[in-house]
């Protein structure tokens, strides 16, 4: 049963990845892009998990862990940065 579902799941995750990419490219605000990048990390995580099941051996565990942690760190850092430059302009910094 898993075998039948897997291709569709992977396809869906890839599609989600692309959608994130589109939002990241389009913006329009810096917050949007940060959000998109954060989501990109999360979706990449899911994609890796699905691919591991498909390939039959788990992807490097530390890599998974690193992606999970670093996505968070990057988002927080970017948000802190945006908080600090708020005085800049009402127009999008992004």
């Amino acid at each position, binding site marked *: 049963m898993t075998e039948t579902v897997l291709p569709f799941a992977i396809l869906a995750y*890839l599609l989600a*990845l*692309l959608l994130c*990419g589109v939002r*990241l*490219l389009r*913006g329009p605000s*810096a917050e949007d*892009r*940060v959000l*998109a*990048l954060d989501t*990109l*990390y999360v979706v*990449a995580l899911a994609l*890796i998990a699905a*691919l591991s099941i498909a390939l039959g051996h788990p*992807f*490097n565990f*530390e*890599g998974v*862990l*690193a*992606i999970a*942690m*670093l996505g*968070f*760190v*990057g988002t*927080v*850092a*970017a948000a*802190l*940065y*945006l*908080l*600090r*430059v708020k005085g*800049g*302009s009402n127009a*999008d*910094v*992004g």
Partner: protein
Amino acid sequence: MTLLTICLLPWCAALLLARLRSATAAFALAGACALVVLGLLGQMAQAVWAGQTLQSSVAWLPALGVSATLRIDALAWLFATLVSGIGALVILYARYYMDGDERLPRFFALLCAFMGAMLGVVLAGDLVLLAMFWELTSLASFLLIAFNAPDRGAVRGARAALAVTGMGGLALMAAVVMLGRAAGSFDLATVLAAGDVVRADPRYPWILTCFLLAVFSKSAQFPFQFWLARAMAAPTPVSAYLHSATLVKAGIFLLLRFYPVLGGTDAWFFAVSTAGAITLLLGGVAAVFQHDLKGLLAYSTVSHLGLITLLIGFSTPTAIVAAVFHVINHATFKASLFMAAGIVDHECGTRDLRNVNGMWRYMPLTGSLAIVAAAAMAGVPLLNGFLSKEMFFGEALALEGHDPIALLAPLAALLAGAAGVAYSARFVHDVFFNGAPINLPRTPHEPPLWMAAPVAVLVLLCLLVGLIPTPIIGAPLAAAAHAALGGSLPSYSLALWHGFNGPLAMSALALVSGVGIYAVLMRKRALHQRPLPDPWGYRQFERLLLTLARSGVVLVRQLRGDRMRLQMAVLALAAVLAAGWPLLGGGFEAHLPELTAAIPQGGIIVWVVGAVFAIAATSARNQPVTVLLFLGAVGLAVALAFAGLSAPDLSLTQLFVEVATVLLLLLALQRLPVEAPPVRSLGKRLRYAAIAVAGGGGTGWLAWEAMLRKPPAISDYQLANAVSGAGGTNAVNVIIVDFRGFDTLGEITVLAAAALIVWAFLARERAGVLGRFQGSFMLPTAVKIVMPFAALVAVHLYLRGHNLPGGGFVAGLLLAIGLVLEALALGSWRSPHARPVRWLAAGLGLALLTGAASLALGYPFLTSAFGHPVLPVLGEIPLASAALFDLGVLAVVVGATVMLILAFAFGREEGKK
């Protein structure tokens, strides 16, 4: 082993002293250190005087033929004894000179460090080691001159000394490398035996030039004499120790040491004796006209150093004997004179010769000691100075062959002798007699007994050597001269009385005319009205510094700020040219990349996403943050691609580096204008695009070619030997911490230095707490929950590093990122766990200790040991000493990363104070 103790003891003492608070304890420790060194040297005396050479050696960089060899012969023994003996006296003296100064422990620490450096120079049995210690003496001298740092004179003096002697150090390095090549070894004994080969070598003139530059700069020979006068801004104990008895003698030591190798040629004769003669006269005349007591002594030191140099330049065996003898004599009387001058300064509050007069009434004891020492300096009979001066006059008269100099030498000697008498007379008469003191800040009186004691000891030595030279100094002098000559010893006599002869007549003439000159100059205190002579050399030096600084400003103006694009373009172009140049020569067979083979089919989407964002990031309309976020996406794609190509190590490292970079750039961006000026003209954009494509494409292509070529690579060896040679299956990690451990040590040292520089520049005025973040209420809690897990994962990554992807570097980055996040969440750089300086220190210390441990066990530095001990309960544990080294790498990475990022986050902002 004793040699190693002698060499290391002062350094250990210095380290301890730097942590001490109590002046008494510091004094006891420093004094004990000097005395122990002296005692150890005393133990060796008999053996060394008998002509033995003791040696102890540890392989250091065996691949380069460099080893940490220590070697002592009679010449080295003599200088080492001077260094430690006068060191002990100066420490006693400084205890009272700087009584009540809370910086005393620091002072003693620096003094001991200098002693260690100087002993290193003297005892080094290897040229590279010698050059290293030589640099350390310059550094220690710099720190000691700058001891009263905010003081302008101290800072300028220290700067001049460091610039001049540092330049000399570079020259010495060059000389050492060439000499080592010419002689075929860096080992001192081998080099000393290879004099004929070296002198016949075509590089000989270059070696000699560099060598003499080093020697002359250190020993304040013309035209570098000016730094010594400036160095008088140092506390007087320093002047007595470094700038009369030891540091400036390092140059002389080197001249004597390498006389058998480099000496005896015409070039040597002319260069050394000319510089010596000019210095001798210049210093002597300048000394007479100084108004500063220490200035007078400084120029007299310059003059005496010139005298010794001149003697060595004469290149006759007896002249070398005289030079060695005068080194000893000068050290004793000049150190005591400096100490006496210090006492006068200390008691009067000034050392201006125009004010300090008639001291005899106030301090007869100091006066009588100083008068004896000054008489020795002038060369009055019955004192040691007389003996060596006599020998000097004899040499000057006996000089043959080189016509102009043979004629001029006696004349110059006589003139210098007279000048010497004149300034000695001035020292005695002006300070202790010549009326009454004028406008002294306080009423002088005798110093504490223990402060005068070191002076008394030295003066007593002057007297004893002067009266009964042979029993006192005969044996060590003979042995040292023998060692310096490297051959047979000439016949000479140390007797006080040689009958009526030329030298005696010259001595008498010098004495009479010197006193006469002084009397004429000082008539009606006329000398006090004369302006200071132009300190030749120093002004030129200052002008040179100024020119350098100005051209630096011009250069910076050309390069900085809005020229950033140009800078990057130039860099990229240079790289392209440098890489492309060899290809133009032909004979290079290009392989066109077959794209289809390179990309695994499943990963194509990842590659496309990465490429799209890489291209999108170059769009000119983007704001910096957007570019950064795009690059984040590219980084993720690259990491995934690495992982897909079965390079989990790279993937992991790429991810961590990526995030650390983004953090750093975000914080740096905040200091930059939000909007970068866009490049509008199409031509420019095309040009930049071309450069970018050439750079990036070229790099990629080169990498491609390199991978296709697969040269008989060392990597194969390393892969094959990772398990058997170092007990690890993660070849990357094994290479970093084991096979190339020494490189890694260098790299983490550079990393630490770079981080410290940034820290020092940006974080000079750290904002204690950062209100600007308006800390979120959720973030701190979240970080508190996440941090322990991050630490756990870091430990995990570190522990498995030797066998599986991970290792100290990645673990350190993870920990650092966590710590930075913690600091950011708390809004304060005073995060309880992020102590970057401590991390750095601990890491470097651990890495060094691991290396040193293998040294102590008798293996070359950083040899790694490994084993798989099977412990009860715990099971088999792969244990490699490299793991400890890796822990050091981890700590350095944590420290440096945290330091860099926090410096940006909390550092001083431009324009704000």
